[in-house]
């Protein structure tokens, strides 16, 4: 008898169950663990305090990203420049000490391979389809773009994975987000996921793992899929997945940590089984028409606060739910916006192109494509491009993208998280606006009092040229 049809999520889950407990929780094996400097010091401290080691050190990869400055890391003689902020320096030192002490591979802050964990994992071929991937960072969902079950964990769980290579988990429900039709010109993966979050709501995915399905995703490059899955957490979902296919295999082949030779062949054979079977049941399905989506921007302080660029700032009364009305009123006050203002009349002073959502080579190409032969408007005070990794940076420089950015008035920085969360010196000043390619528009996310508008890389570039939010399709 043929086995029961299963979802992609169920297949990956089933393949990782070490044991099931009476209460329905399961001990799940973790194949890949990424570690950065912010959420790991207390985990290593916990191991030391309990006299425990790391079970499978080779399955963990450590790389600093969150609070490294994005200014030059080495002086003219190749000697490392000190980090001014003593606390940032202490976190970096802790990781530099902890990784070798526990036998974990460490990518140094000044290595070409250094970058944002979620850029480095796929780029190195460390993140693979069908694997379970965790990191003490909620945007781990990103790696689902390769067909991995990837999700963020807290520091106690980081310690748990280091010590046991497992996690005790409750199985999530499976949600299908089926997108029909094709994206219009100038509409990107980022616009699509912002639109999806607007439809599902910031808590709509809570308790679910989302599988994104439809031709749109099949047509996407790996970079674009990573962008979509990255923001699953912004819809409340623990993880997002796209079934791996030839596009993914082509992307991974030959990457430093990807399987080689016969291992590669065996891996691809297995990966080809990783798709939702016909007739498999989802606990929830959402259908979205891609052709109706315009370049999308946020107006408020929750990622669900989205509006097409052709739209206007909504009025709180336009929401049915009274608590959403109150939240919207508060958001608008924080954002300094008046209902009814066309989005294209919202002035912008800062531009941030970067973050694990949009700092890969394709993202930089998309932004550079818009900026080529243009310069930023006079009212743009600060515009930075922060590549996702040293390798992305090198590739971009080879293609001459850095020149396009600097000619347009942007600063070309070293890789890291940067103004995505403002833990390093890159912050948006209080009361000022930023068109940002990052993933969170929370209050104070980019710096105390900073006002964030989430956009795609092309739309960030368009905003830079126009000095206000602008429709990239209408730029003259």
């Amino acid at each position: 008898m043929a086995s029961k049809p299963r979802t992609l999520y169920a297949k990956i889950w089933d393949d990782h169950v070490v044991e099931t407990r009476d209460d329905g929780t399961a001990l799940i094996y973790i194949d890949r663990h990424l570690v950065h400097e912010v959420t790991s010091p207390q985990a290593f401290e916990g191991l030391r305090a309990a006299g425990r080691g790391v079970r499978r050190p080779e399955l963990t990869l450590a790389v600093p990203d969150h609070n490294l400055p994005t200014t030059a890391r080495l002086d003219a003689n190749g000697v490392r420049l000190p980090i001014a902020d003593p606390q940032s320096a202490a976190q970096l030192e802790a990781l530099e000490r902890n990784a070798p002490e526990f036998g974990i591979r460490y990518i140094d802050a000044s290595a070409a391979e250094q970058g944002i964990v979620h850029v480095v994992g796929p780029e190195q071929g460390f993140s693979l389809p069908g694997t379970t991937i965790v990191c003490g960072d909620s945007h781990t969902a990103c790696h689902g773009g390769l067909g991995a079950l990837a999700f963020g964990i807290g520091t106690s769980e980081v310690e748990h994975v280091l010590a046991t290579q497992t996690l005790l988990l409750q199985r999530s429900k499976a949600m299908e987000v089926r997108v029909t039709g094709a994206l219009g010109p100038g509409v990107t993966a980022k616009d699509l996921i912002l639109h999806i979050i607007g439809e599902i709501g910031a808590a709509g995915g809570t308790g679910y793992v989302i599988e994104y399905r439809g031709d749109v995703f099949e047509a996407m490059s790996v970079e674009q899929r990573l962008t979509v899955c990255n923001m699953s957490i912004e819809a409340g979902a623990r993880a997002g997945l796209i079934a791996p296919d030839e596009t993914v295999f082509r992307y991974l082949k030959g990457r430093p940590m990807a399987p080689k030779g016969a291992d590669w062949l065996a891996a691809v054979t297995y990966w080809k089984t990783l798709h939702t079977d016909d007739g498999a049941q989802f606990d929830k399905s959402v259908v979205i028409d891609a052709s109706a989506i315009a370049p999308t921007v946020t107006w408020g302080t929750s990622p669900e606060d989205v509006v097409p660029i052709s739209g206007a700032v909504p009025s709180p009364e336009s929401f049915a739910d009274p608590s959403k009305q109150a939240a919207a009123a508060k958001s608008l006050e924080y954002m300094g916006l008046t209902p009814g203002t066309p989005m294209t009349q919202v002035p912008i002073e800062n531009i941030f192109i970067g973050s694990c959502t949009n700092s890969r080579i394709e993202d930089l190409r998309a932004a550079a494509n818009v900026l080529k032969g243009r310069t930023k408007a006079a009212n743009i005070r600060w515009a930075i491009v922060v590549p996702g990794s040293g390798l992305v940076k090198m590739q971009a420089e080879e293609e001459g993208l850095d020149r396009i950015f600097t000619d347009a008035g942007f600063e070309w920085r070293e890789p890291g998280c940067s103004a995505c969360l403002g833990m390093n010196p890159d912050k948006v000043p209080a009361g000022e606006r930023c068109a940002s390619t990052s993933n969170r528009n929370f209050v104070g996310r980019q710096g105390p009092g900073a006002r964030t508008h989430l956009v795609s890389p092309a739309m960030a570039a368009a905003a830079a040229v126009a000095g206000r939010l602008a429709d990239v399709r209408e730029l003259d």
Partner: protein
Amino acid sequence: MDAISRVAGRAIPFGAKNVDTDIIIPAKWLKTITREGLGEGAFETIRAEPGNIFDAPENAGAPILIAGDNFGCGSSREHAAWALLDLGIRAVIAPSYSDIFSGNAVKNGILPIVLAQEAIDRLMDVAQAGEPVDIDLDTQTVTTPFQDRFTFEIDPFRKHCLLNGLDEVALTLDSQENIGNFETRRAAAHGWLTTGTQV
């Protein structure tokens, strides 16, 4: 982590929805390498306003926080749980939580109690009147001096860990043999998984 069976006393009638972990503890406080001392940064932006609920003298040392839907959404930072703990909070009552936050809370001995919105509304009134709230984990009930009695669900394993102050890593290490067997099976079926990771 400390065992916890009963949390009783003042509840802070916060009530806000979609409180993200950036609100609970802003990013600049994540630069610590220890778990202690984060209470100072807890709800920093809210506490910058004079007359805020967290610094109200009557709420000093309150062990319970009442919140709205989707509490602890956003970043996975466990610092949010450490900050609440450092503030003296041992239980949160809300209609829902982000998955990551409730996991982090339990691991640090904070009870994330789920109650329906009507119950929350009632408890907000009780807390605003300055009356205490009493949580009993053993019987899974929340009671007030006004004959209110709300029962809540909690995952039995989480309950067991909270009641006994158990360290989850130690518990899982009891399954070491199963983990080892799983690794052997997995290596045989999927050799590509380990070959790729050799340095």
